[in-house]
């Protein structure tokens, strides 16, 4: 599938995810991996060879997989429960709600190949609703990393935290975001990648590098855009959003539904505390078949689409 073919300077975040889980497992024998026949798609083959007793493959049974994850946590393990995000979230939603979040179990859920990574396979395999669904569940941390560095950092931060976490692992090739030396990741803390005062662009996941590129294009036209990486969608960094609202306009962009996910979360907070004009970029609903790259372009989820929304918002 074209979206997963690595090209120069682009990375599949599953590689960073699996390396981070392996590093954690070397240092801590409580780390176990739980999969639904997805050793290959989760890239956990090496983990299985290295820690054969710490890879629990439940077969094709997502509800059981998430329940088993909660049970492993009860037994003192730190389970990384990984499966295609479309099945992990939709099929096991009640187990995520009851066994993980409501029971406050120390389970780390990894939604692999999220968004439209499986573009050609159709809407059954698109996972564009996952963030909207999961952020509605209390006591569940939801993280959407943007690149290999942030994916690894989020995996490690999730392991250090006691409580249920969902991490969205992207498969679509992304570049490594340029960051200042010494940059650090913290759950619940947004990252300001660029300062600006005409508007703010809030993005995460595979849209973050597109937001940076859009801000560069806008700067050439004299529009100063603040760019904020909102990797943690729940709990939301309210202070960072207040600073974005202070610019007077906000564009959000995400590889997911235009309603209910990151954009919805930002809009709820702004409507209550600092209403500003907004544009929420995302997918409208069930999508046609097509490669991930084609779908992103078709629905304006790229630098051009973000820049166009920004121009419209600031009236230029």
């Amino acid at each position, binding site marked *: 599938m074209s979206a997963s073919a690595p090209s120069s300077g682009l990375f599949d975040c599953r590689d960073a995810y699996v390396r981070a889980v392996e590093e954690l497992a070397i240092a801590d024998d409580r780390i176990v991996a739980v999969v639904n026949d997805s050793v290959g798609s989760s890239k956990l083959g090496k983990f299985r060879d290295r820690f054969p007793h710490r890879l629990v493959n439940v077969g094709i049974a997502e509800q059981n997989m998430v*329940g*088993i994850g909660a*049970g492993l946590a009860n037994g003192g*393990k730190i389970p990384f429960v990984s499966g295609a995000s479309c099945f992990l979230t939709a099929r096991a939603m*009640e187990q995520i709600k*009851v*066994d993980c979040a409501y*029971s406050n179990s120390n389970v780390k859920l990894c939604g692999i190949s999220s968004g439209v990574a499986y573009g050609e396979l159709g809407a059954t395999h698109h996972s564009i609703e996952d963030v909207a669904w999961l952020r509605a569940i209390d006591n569940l941390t939801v993280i959407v990393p943007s690149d290999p560095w942030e994916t690894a950092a989020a995996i490690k931060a999730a392991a250090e935290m006691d409580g249920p976490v969902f991490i969205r692992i992207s498969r679509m090739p992304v570049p490594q975001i340029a960051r200042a030396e010494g940059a650090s990741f913290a759950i619940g803390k947004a990252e300001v990648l660029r300062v600006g005062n005409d508007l703010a662009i809030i993005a995460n996941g595979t849209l973050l590098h597109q937001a940076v590129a859009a801000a560069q294009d806008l700067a050439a036209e004299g529009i100063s855009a603040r760019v904020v990486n909102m990797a943690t969608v729940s709990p939301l960094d309210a202070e960072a959003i207040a600073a974005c609202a202070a610019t007077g306009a906000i564009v959000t962009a995400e590889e997911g539904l235009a309603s209910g996910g990151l954009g919805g979360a930002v809009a709820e907070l702004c409507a209550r505390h600092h209403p500003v004009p907004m544009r929420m970029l995302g997918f409208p609903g069930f999508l046609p078949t097509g490669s991930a790259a084609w779908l992103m372009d078709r629905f304006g989820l790229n630098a051009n689409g973000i820049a166009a929304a920004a121009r419209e918002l600031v009236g230029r």
Partner: protein
Amino acid sequence: MIVAAGQGHPGGDLSATDIVAALYFDILRFDPTAPLAPSRDRFILSKGHCTGALYTALAGAGFFPEADLDTYLQPGSRLNGHPNRTYLPGVETNTGPLGHGLPVGVGIAVAGQIDNADYRVFVLTGDGELQEGSMWEAAMFAGHRGLGNLTVIVDRNRLQQGARTEDTNSLEPLGGKWASFGWQVVEVDGHDHAALLAAFDDACAPRNQPRVIIANTIKGKGVSFMENQAGWHHGVPNPEQYQQALAELEAEIHA
């Protein structure tokens, strides 16, 4: 509790009470002052609505004061309608929706298997609950993993909320289903304490196979007007019924 609260699930509570009592007072190894000790035996009430049976056992076993039972279902009480581990010591996982307890129990048993730990895992399920697909996902995997540290008890009262299980979505041959999933199957009278203890005896348990105890029970056991009545799945006795129920249960205790 149920009379004071004005709601509850007395039918299922009474069918499960002898099983829960045998577990908490003769079988399970735990320290109520250290409810999260890694070595503890685990008990999971997969039929989470039967908190009347669970809470009385937990209080009797010393996890919390018996006086707290008077707060059952009251506003803000930690004695929720369905058990919540973040409220109440001794609860292993939150249940309520059916089909959740066995997968979690299997996960605990897998952790024990990985660690070669001594603790045992017991999951009490309703029979109607076995219509949930997730129970069979878990049963299949427990058989595959040969989880000798896992025991499931089926509260086989043959009634679900609205009707007989066999008229709704029949479970029989129930023992054959579990056996075909790789489980050792034991069938007992779920109200015969000695028979329950014999079924729970580790000496009879297979080492590399999970065990299911099909406990034949009577929904509403011990209260003549509730016994085998689907209508008492949930409900509250009126004052006359309450006095009669107490008198019948007292008489049985002293018989």
